[in-house]
């Protein structure tokens, strides 16, 4: 039993329809995206480990040090190493966004598959729940959840995941409903394979490309969300190094040291750009 059975005429039509409906991202744009992601995530994950400087250690006599000195990228108004703060901020953004995306993907996909598989009242209830969450713009929901404990990580991730899982639920439910009706699934069932086998060997591999697109887009949304909420002081709070709050914090010093504001902005921009290039032609 091999998954190459998938090439029945009906599935070809479905695949062709899906291809036509979604503009395919150009190859080089996606490659550029992966390359950028590799560089930025390398900095975010390895940076804090390689750079020995403490991002929170103040040295007021060495405030606003220029580029190229002991701290490479200079220091902020409190004399904290900019390089260390950037690396730790990027790590925080990257890991929080990854966690948020996982928290959205896993329940979203599982519930979507369950809804398509079981149908009946369970599907109706889940769809109603998804509609309820879709009725409100995502950020408003996130802000409501954050209001329970402003400045903490858990409500931040939970709120973002609560807004983001719906997309995974809707897409995986719609795609699974089509896939589960295919003759090869029926054949697999009649050969005596259980639901676990169908899920692992047939359903998830068929969903995977779409999910990767959605996930990279969701992660870019999460990164924008985390930095935005921190910038308007309801997300991660100072003194924790976070890219969004660093930008707002350092803006008053623009005249003395313009690079301090531009570097975290550039880092967010590159991270989001990489993820959006990978996700290709999605327009939301």
């Amino acid at each position, binding site marked *: 039993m091999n998954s190459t059975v998938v090439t029945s005429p009906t599935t070809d039509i479905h695949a062709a329809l899906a291809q036509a409906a979604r*503009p395919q991202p150009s190859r080089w744009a996606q490659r550029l995206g992966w390359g950028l992601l590799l560089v930025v995530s390398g900095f975010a994950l390895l940076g804090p480990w390689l750079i020995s400087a403490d991002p929170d250690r103040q040295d007021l006599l060495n405030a606003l040090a220029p580029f190229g000195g002991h701290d490479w990228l200079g220091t902020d108004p409190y004399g904290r190493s900019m390089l260390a703060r950037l690396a730790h901020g990027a790590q925080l953004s990257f890991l929080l966004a990854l966690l948020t995306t996982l928290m959205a993907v896993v329940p979203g996909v599982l519930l979507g598959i369950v809804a398509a598989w079981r149908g009946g009242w369970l599907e109706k209830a889940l769809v109603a729940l998804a*509609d*309820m*969450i879709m*009725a*409100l*713009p*995502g*950020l*408003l*929901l996130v*802000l*409501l*959840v*954050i*209001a*329970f404990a*402003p400045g903490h990580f858990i409500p931040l991730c939970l709120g973002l995941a609560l807004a983001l899982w719906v997309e995974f639920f809707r897409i995986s439910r719609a795609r699974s409903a089509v896939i589960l009706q295919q003759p090869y699934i029926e054949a697999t069932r009649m050969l005596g394979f259980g639901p676990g086998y169908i899920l692992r060997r047939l359903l998830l591999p068929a969903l995977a490309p779409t999910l990767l697109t959605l996930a990279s887009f969701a992660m*870019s949304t999460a990164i*924008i969300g985390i*930095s*935005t909420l921190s*910038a*308007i*002081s*309801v997300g991660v709070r100072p003194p924790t190094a976070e890219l*969004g709050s660093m*930008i*707002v914090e350092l*803006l008053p010093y*623009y005249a003395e040291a313009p690079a301090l*504001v531009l570097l975290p*902005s550039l880092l*967010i*921009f590159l991270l*989001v*750009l990489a993820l*959006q*290039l990978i996700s290709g032609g999605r*327009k*939301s």
Partner: protein
Amino acid sequence: MLRSSLWGTVLLGRALQAVLVSLLVGSLCFALMHSLPGDPAMRIAAGRYGPDAMSLQAAESVRQELGLEQPLLQQYGRALWQLAQFDLGHSLVTGRPILEELQVQLGHSLWLALASLLLSLLGIPLGIIAGARAGGWLDRGSQALAIGVRALPPFVLGLLLMWLFSIQLGWLPPAGFGSWQHLLLPALTLALGLAALSCRVSRDAMAEVQQSAYFTFARHKGLRGLTLIQRHGLRNAAIPVVAYLGVQAVYLIEGVVVVESIFAYPGIGHAMVHAIIARDVPMVQGTVLTLGLLFVLINLLIDAACRWIDPRQGGTR
């Protein structure tokens, strides 16, 4: 007869959405109110009469009046019933009725939203011209620009514009409120993000229309240039553009919250963020509810526009 029943389903669907929004916001805010530390009666009394005039008697009378000693489920029902009557209560910080405060702030926010929508319309002709010559330098250039703008979070975009127009050029005030100049920078921030999307969508729509059989036929019968695009291009290309306004509405509402906070513009989003920091739950409820209902209203208008442009659509949306 058929037409009116179709409109009925649209209205009914959006009314249901409005009820869902209210239910969701009301329930979360009820939970929020009860998750706060301390005695709610004391807090409400302090908000109403000022922290100095607040006494145990005042708290007790508030408790009696609002039924705060009743079981939780009964209180929950009461909270939702009040919401259904548009009774939003008083702010815990200023003590004034929420509705009064919202009226002023909503006015400011609507001006901002309207100004940014109007400015963002510039993206559509750009997209149509780019789509009419798909693959040309204008097409590639505007695509790259649109991707770049969308990859910048709105608050970074706002700060960049502030830097360019206020600090470098000195044309506009960086933040605050008072004259139309204060409106321009926040509106431009939102408009750039909106225009980036509408430019891409209208470009794709126009490119698709150009490949269609009816467009080829119109070209073969001798129509040229603007006449061709006007008669056979625009209306067909408009369908996806208007449908994507739903996505735009999400961006607009979220953007209003962020941009108002960054530019210190005293609208409803600014008030919401401050209410969250001050833990002013009735105010949080009022602001989120207003923005949520505004979102529903915009969606209703989009539905109507879709029907008007494309009468073939049945009850699909």
